[in-house]
């Protein structure tokens, strides 16, 4: 009998195969980046619940399943399937299926000059300098072993670059699909968005499963806003409920920039999402919102970090969780105010509604304040629907079931109503209603 292979060894062996053949023609800086990442992973391995950062989320089901990189082939995905996921959204889109870029499903025409939207592998050939300056520079390999794995296996992904002063009106859609044939595979979707000085853009990322396969999606997104830039990031996670979703979203903001981020988690059996936002220039503003709607045995773990590194910055954070059946939600919200980051204004709120007695939520605020002239507030709630609100609705003629649905919807709408632009908001509102009705 062969002994079971240690999960870490399995990934290291996979990396040797990857580096030996397919990784191929990468520039030296990228090879160094990958090498450093795999060495980091080799040193720390996968996290366990003994680590504070992973206390509530056991990744053993993820690591013990022997996922492999997809073979280089093109699973059949219809344009209708993509349209269905996008829900009528038009305009620029990059579509990836099981980790591979699919130009025939993508639309990159009609963009203003000064804007690049394409695959990372194309960009490596054309915009090597921009990539070398940003890729892997923000989502550090030290914080999270899954991020290190993503960087070690970095080969392709989405690249968006908005040049100085350019404003892109239409949302740019990045779609990462898992086909029905995704079972047993691990993919490492990767996104880099660079918004130059005084430029503006909206990026909508969708991670979705087209079937009910069990796979691992290990996504990393880096978002850079230069001075005076304004960007909106909407991220929709609708993986197969049998799938695992591990993710890191990292934003880095310059002076007077405005970033609005909204993450929605509806899918995956087990998901962990680390969101880190660094406010690295005076006057920067951040809206960091999130919503999870889970049922069955789903588990979501949001770890957010807002790093106020410079003075006069503002951050508003709202994460709501709607948990039914045996679902479990974890929220850890860390706010760091660095020495000298005076006049920081930061507000964090995490609300969880438990729709059954077996649903569970854990909420941990973590404030680390090293400046003395700041305003930081935080609050969290966990509980069933408010009985006073239910009674209030009933006294207006709304039946018990409809009243519960209305309050639950309101919980979601509290987050969704803050999403801009309106067409994306309306689409997500429809998605939320459909999810709540399921």
């Amino acid at each position: 009998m062969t002994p079971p292979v240690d999960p870490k060894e399995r990934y290291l062996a996979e990396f040797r195969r990857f580096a030996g053949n397919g990784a191929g023609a990468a520039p030296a800086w990228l090879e160094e980046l990958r090498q450093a990442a795999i060495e980091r992973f080799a040193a720390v391995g996968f996290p366990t619940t003994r680590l504070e950062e992973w206390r509530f989320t056991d990744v053993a089901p993820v690591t013990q399943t022997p996922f492999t990189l997809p073979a280089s082939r093109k699973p059949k995905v219809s344009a209708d399937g993509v349209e269905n996921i996008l829900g009528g959204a038009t305009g620029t889109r990059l579509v990836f299926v099981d980790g591979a870029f699919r130009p025939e499903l993508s639309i990159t025409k009609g963009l203003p000059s000064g804007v690049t939207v394409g695959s990372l592998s194309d960009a490596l050939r054309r915009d090597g300098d921009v990539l070398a300056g940003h890729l892997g520079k923000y989502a550090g390999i030290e914080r999270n072993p899954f991020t290190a794995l993503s960087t070690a296996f970095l080969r392709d992904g989405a690249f968006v670059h908005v040049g100085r002063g350019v404003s892109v009106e239409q949302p740019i859609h990045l779609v990462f699909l898992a086909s029905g044939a995704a079972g047993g595979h691990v993919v490492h979707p990767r996104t880099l968005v660079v918004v130059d000085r005084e430029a503006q853009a909206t990026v909508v990322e969708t991670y979705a499963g087209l079937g009910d396969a069990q796979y691992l999606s290990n996504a990393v997104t880096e978002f850079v806003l230069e001075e005076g830039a304004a960007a909106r990031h909407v991220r929709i996670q609708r993986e197969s409920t049998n799938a695992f979703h591990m993710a890191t979203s990292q934003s880095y903001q310059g002076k007077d920039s405005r970033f609005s981020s909204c993450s929605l988690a509806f899918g995956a059996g087990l998901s962990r999402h680390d969101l880190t936002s660094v406010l690295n220039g005076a006057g920067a503003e951040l809206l960091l919102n999130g919503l999870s709607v889970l049922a069955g045995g789903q588990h979501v773990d949001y770890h957010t970090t807002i790093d106020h590194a410079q003075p006069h910055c503002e951050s508003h954070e709202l994460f709501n969780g709607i948990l039914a059946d045996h679902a479990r939600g974890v929220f850890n919200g860390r706010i760091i105010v660095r020495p000298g980051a005076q006049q920081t204004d930061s507000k964090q709120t995490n609300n969880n509604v438990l729709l059954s007695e077996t649903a569970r939520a854990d909420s941990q605020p973590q404030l680390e304040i090293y400046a003395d002239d700041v305003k930081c507030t935080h609050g969290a709630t966990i509980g069933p629907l408010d009985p006073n609100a239910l009674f209030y609705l009933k006294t207006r003629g709304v039946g018990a079931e409809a009243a519960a649905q209305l309050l639950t919807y309101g919980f979601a709408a509290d987050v969704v109503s803050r999403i801009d632009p309106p067409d994306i908001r309306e689409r997500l509102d429809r998605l939320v209603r459909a999810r709540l009705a399921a």
Partner: protein
Amino acid sequence: MLEIRNLHASADGHEILKGVDLVVHAGEVHAVMGPNGSGKSTLAQVLAGHPAYAVTQGSVRYEGRDLLAMDPEERAQAGVFLAFQYPVAIRGVTNAYFLRAALNAVRTARGEAELDPMDFIQVLEEKLQAIGWDDTFVNRPVNEGFSGGEKKRNEILQMAVLEPRLAILDETDSGLDIDALKTVAEAVNRLRSPANATVVVTHYQRLLNHIVPDFVHVLVDGRIARSGGKGLALELEEKGYDWIKPEGAVA
């Protein structure tokens, strides 16, 4: 229309209403006054069906039906409306959305067709005018971040939209400045008709200058201790509540 007989109610095992008798006919306006803690708000909440109160004795009939056997939503659908003393905020749900959901629930229960958003907007515009509001408040989440006065006005807007047959106003005057008070009173008076009735629960006589009652009742220690015409309210304003002793107490 409403017949309350020997109503006893308690919360957490503590008896608050100790035998209330009150009869309200269509077309009438009744004021229920009384000192703090006399059970005024409990009476209003029990009539609306609040689950925190247990009715231990007595009966309430509304238009011939056993009101106490009806769920809160059935009472509302049958035309009973309570304007809350402390209206509840509902995050994420706009006033307009909530009002349409409520109106359509009531219409459906009455066998009427639901209103689509366009028809509803027309109804709403009309009612907004009646309470002197523009549409700023209808696109905000229900009562969220509203001032005390705005919440009370919002209760009256709901009442105007739902057009109840029996309206119970629980301390609707508290927290209102004089202009808001007049607007609220006007909206209530506009709903007065031979077919409808209103019960105004209040601690002060002030509101009754604008909503003139046909009958005034004084609730003391869970019972109606005295009933009279509108003159009784003025007498209370002048002398306070101390001179009225609970029924059956030895003077």
